[in-house]
């Protein structure tokens, strides 16, 4: 059983990680080329899939997926624990949200892997 201290430490670290990832993303969109050009790039599905060719980029998207899933579902857990208090409710919330988070991470990982393999040709 992971302690609340550890969960919240990861929560804070993933929050900072998401913030940094968001800053890098916005910086990339606005600073690497004229915005219109970057938006056109995003609108092209082949170009997007091409991003996954680079293993480091694909891995960073995987890391972002895990960070967002953990941070989001842990935040939801905190909200639900504050709304109602009982050991049974707490157990149910913990289990249900852990399973949903894992499903989201597994499905997202599958998508990233497929995109990476397609991009590799």
């Amino acid at each position, binding site marked *: 059983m992971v302690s609340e*201290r550890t969960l919240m430490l990861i929560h804070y670290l993933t929050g900072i990680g998401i913030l940094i990832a968001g800053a890098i993303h916005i910086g990339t969109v606005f600073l690497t080329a004229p915005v219109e050009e970057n938006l056109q790039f995003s609108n092209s599905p082949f170009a997007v899939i091409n991003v996954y060719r680079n293993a480091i980029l694909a891995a960073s998207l995987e890391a972002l997926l895990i960070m967002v899933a953990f941070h989001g579902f842990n935040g939801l857990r905190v909200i639900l*624990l504050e709304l109602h208090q009982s050991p049974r409710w707490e157990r149910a919330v913990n289990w249900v949200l852990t399973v949903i988070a894992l499903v989201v991470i597994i499905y997202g990982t599958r998508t990233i892997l497929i995109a990476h393999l397609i991009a590799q040709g």
Partner: protein
Amino acid sequence: MEKQGEVIFKVFRYDPSRDREGRFQTYKVPLVKGLTVLDALIYIKENLDPTLSMRYSCRMASCGSCGMTINGLPRLACYTQVRELNSKVVVVEPLANFPKLRDLATDFDGFFAKHRAMKPYLIRQDREEQENPRDQYRQSDEELLQYLQFAYCIKCGLCYAACPVAATDKEFPGPQALAQLYRYYADSRDQAEGERLEIVDNSHGIWRCHFAASCSYVCPKGVDPALAIQLLRKALLFGGKR
């Protein structure tokens, strides 16, 4: 005392033997210089309605008995001048987040139980010393300043009434208890830092604070419970005594 007009008091009334819900009753109180909300409530009880129930004692912001919601904010009635409210109507209600007993009196049993759960006393590792201390414990000025402001707490419950987390999570210890935990944690004479931190490192403990800081805003004694909570979190995350 020279009368300077009248103030309308809308006072929350609730009798559990009769009412399912509370209601407001209006009284007119003569305004005199220096009139506090507690003075006005005592005037109502002595002259207009002897059935009004409230809790008070020292009348000088020392005992923490007369906490109530005055014009929407938790305040001490004895410490709140009617003039400073700058309003012709003063609305007085019981403290939020506390079970209502009758009229303005609320039940503090749960609040004090949370306070007691923090072990608000010095703990020494030597059991014999704990029960029969042989000597005084010396402390420098710097060591005293580590916790002094938190020792000013009078357990009036205003911070607990203002806390948005205490409103929804009934197991959350609340700012008063957490500030008291830090008060003993930071005391150089105490030897139970690990034991104290364990008390609040759980799913309804210190991590549930959202740092609204309303506790620190309403404290009539200048205690900063929000700071204590952040310092406790720092101790839990990064370790290190004081």
